[in-house]
């Protein structure tokens, strides 16, 4: 059984008071609860403050480009379906630069857990609006406040019939850890959008704001009910539910190939007989 300590403890580049610290704790708890050892998991991230998270874990990781973590994770999972792949990055990375990949991953229902640090701001580049920033949020890049409708990732993921859609908050670490563990256990694409205060750059949606505008879902919500999920998912500014919003059992993308046996193909030798047969078609 892996323990929290197996995942190490590192000096971080995060600001004091940042929600990322609780998020990191919740991830460790979830890994332990899921009985996953450091070498059994591959974390894939993009670039941003959030995306540094895997660097602070003992684990396999691929810390890729800003916005491009999901395709890397998708390629990794397709190449080795036996590997547990967790994507972790920020709201800007995932829904901004990486928006197209987010749509595609959800539509595919590829077997990846996606943990998105949603601080509603670009942290690493010092405070521009992110796709989830609230309308009216003022920054040096948006001096008149944000005009765009915020991106509701949870709702779009439900619309795309992603396998698992949840929302967490770093203020409730245990709840979050449990949510992440459930997401990891889900075989298809599992999104956990995680409210994470950024005290350095988002003074609007601070810890108190998230605390005051969210509530925890109870048993009354049935995440298998798509219509109910859609309704819950529409909340963005107040009365935002935390927990499992939607879940379905669409087969995971990688499980649908004719040759899918859960194992990577690259460990096998090239079969000359098969190759000869393929070439024969061109004679």
């Amino acid at each position, binding site marked *: 059984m892996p323990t929290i300590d197996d995942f190490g403890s590192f000096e971080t580049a995060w600001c004091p008071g940042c929600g990322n610290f609780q998020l990191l704790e919740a991830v460790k708890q979830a890994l332990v609860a899921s009985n996953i050892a450091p070498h059994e998991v591959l974390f894939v991230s993009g670039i941003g403050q959030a995306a540094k998270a895997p660097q602070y874990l003992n684990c396999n990781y691929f810390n890729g480009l800003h916005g491009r973590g999901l395709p890397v994770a998708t390629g990794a999972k397709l190449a080795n379906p036996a590997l547990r792949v967790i994507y972790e990055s920020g709201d800007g990375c995932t829904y901004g630069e990486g928006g197209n990949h987010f749509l595609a991953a959800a539509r595919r229902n590829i077997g990846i857990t996606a943990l998105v640090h949603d601080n509603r701001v670009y942290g690493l580049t010092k405070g521009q609006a992110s796709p989830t920033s609230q309308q009216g949020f003022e920054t040096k890049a948006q001096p008149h406040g944000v005009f765009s409708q915020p991106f509701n990732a949870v709702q779009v993921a439900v619309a795309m019939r992603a396998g698992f859609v949840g929302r967490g908050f770093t203020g409730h670490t245990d709840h979050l850890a449990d949510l992440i563990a459930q997401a990891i256990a889900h075989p298809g694409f599992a999104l956990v959008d995680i409210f994470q205060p950024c005290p350095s750059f988002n003074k609007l949606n601070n810890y108190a704001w998230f605390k005051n505008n969210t509530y925890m879902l109870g048993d009354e919500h049935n995440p298998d009910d798509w219509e109910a999920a859609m309704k819950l998912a529409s909340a963005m500014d107040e009365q935002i539910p935390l927990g499992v919003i939607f879940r379905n059992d669409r087969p995971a993308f990688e499980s649908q190939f004719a040759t899918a046996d859960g194992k*990577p193909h690259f460990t096998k030798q090239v079969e000359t007989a098969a190759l000869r047969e393929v070439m024969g078609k061109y004679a």
Partner: protein
Amino acid sequence: MDTNPRDDFNLMIAGEAGQGLATFGELVVKALVRSGYYIVVTQSYHSRIRGGHNTFAVRLSTEPISTSRDALDLLVAMNSDGVRLHHDELAEDGIALADEKLDAEGARLVKVPFGDLAPGKFANTAGLGVVAALIGLDQALVDDLVQEQFGKKHPETADSNRTALENGYAWGREHLPRAGKRVKPATRSSTPRLALNGNQAIALGALSAGVRFVSFYPMTPSTSIPLTLIAAADKMGVAFEQAEDEIAAINMAIGASFTGAPAMVATSGGGFALMVEGISLAAMTETPVVIAVAQRPGPATGLPTRTEQGDLELVLHAGHGEFPRALYAPGSVEQCFHLTREAFLTAEASQGPVFILTDQFLADSFRAVDPLEVEGLETVPVPVDAQPVALPYRRYEVTDSGVSPRLLPGFSEHLVQADSDEHDEQGHITEDHGVRIAQVDKRLRKLDVIQERVIPPDASGDPNPDLLLVCWGSAKGAVEDAAAQMRAQGHSVGTLHFSQVWPLVPEQFVPALEGAKRVICCEGNAMGQFARLIRRETGFHIADTVLRYDGLPLTPEYILERCCTT
């Protein structure tokens, strides 16, 4: 007019998109190759699905050939434009065929009563019969081919196809002047040759090297590479996915390769432009990946279905920051196969991005290829075995060669950590200036690993010639043929063909350049990109160029015309 059977014959099928011209052409190709002929196909098509004027030209010969010819011995016109636009390309004794219902006129135009020979949907089969009869192909062989081709999907059409073919043959033998007497019979080899175009050969090369992953976004003229891989995927254990865009494609391939699957992508200029950041990621994370770029004329959308060699400089410098790479540029269908294999091995050996530069002309050009040996071929050594590494395991260990021990995540307890930021040996982000220098130097040392494997340029013709024609990639056949023609006229001509255009090893070719009285670089672009690369790397200035950028491939005629005037 020589009326003896010839060992070289040039035919063209012309019509519009949607008439099944490519299928027709590919049947002719297969029939010819099975009959033992060598072939060179040149396809020209518009960027549309129906209509537009398309051609599928096949030069066939009993001897190996590597380039097309202009003068037509046979024109098969599927519409009246086919006659109108190409009739004047007929050789002195060439003939043209067209449906008797078409409104078309011309000397030596033979009207074929297709309506009588076969019902509409079998007209192409009847046409195949007519053409085969003219050339003198064995009817049983062609019949087998037709049954094979259509039999699987539509068993109910077997009889109609057979009858159509028979009628075509019979009509052709009876009505075509010198049917069966125009072309020398070829010798059928015991191990049959393959009819392959460049893209198919790239895909087969990849399969033989052990490719296990391909991701792509459709783009002419590259798409047939992934489609060929996908057709074989279940048999060969290849995971694949049509990505949401080219950025996803390259990043997926990098993820798959990091995890262990030898991986490739294929695209064309505009799609490649979108992969530029990903190339840099492959370099920084030291992840092997093969990128096939099938060039077409740019800028931007350009001429999507035409050919050009205009993206050499782009591919050579793609990616921000500095890192080593290798660029292969096959000059023939066989080289497409072998260099793709080489690309996979080099990518793994140097742990980084490796490129194959092809173009529409080569991509679509069918040739008769001698059977490719599959036994005992080297495949990419996938590092699934964790035993040999020194502990603690460090993905980016600084080594003499610059190549660090590569392990795969999940195959041992060792953690594999890759970082797009500058990183220490462990793979952790760093801003230490000393570590930065060590890692840059380590990465750049891998250029030597690539350099050791460099394929020297291929020289042909006279040593120390009066004229040396330099070229790269798909221009090979045209240039060598032009040189041969000049030599046949008594000139002293040599050629130098680069099938690897980066890195360049000056000692391998500067003596040849210096040994020639005059050097001309022949390229399918407007700026002479390869000539300036040679100058950058060697100081040798090739002032004379023959450049083509109208969307068509370099041909011997084009080169000959310009060599005498430049």
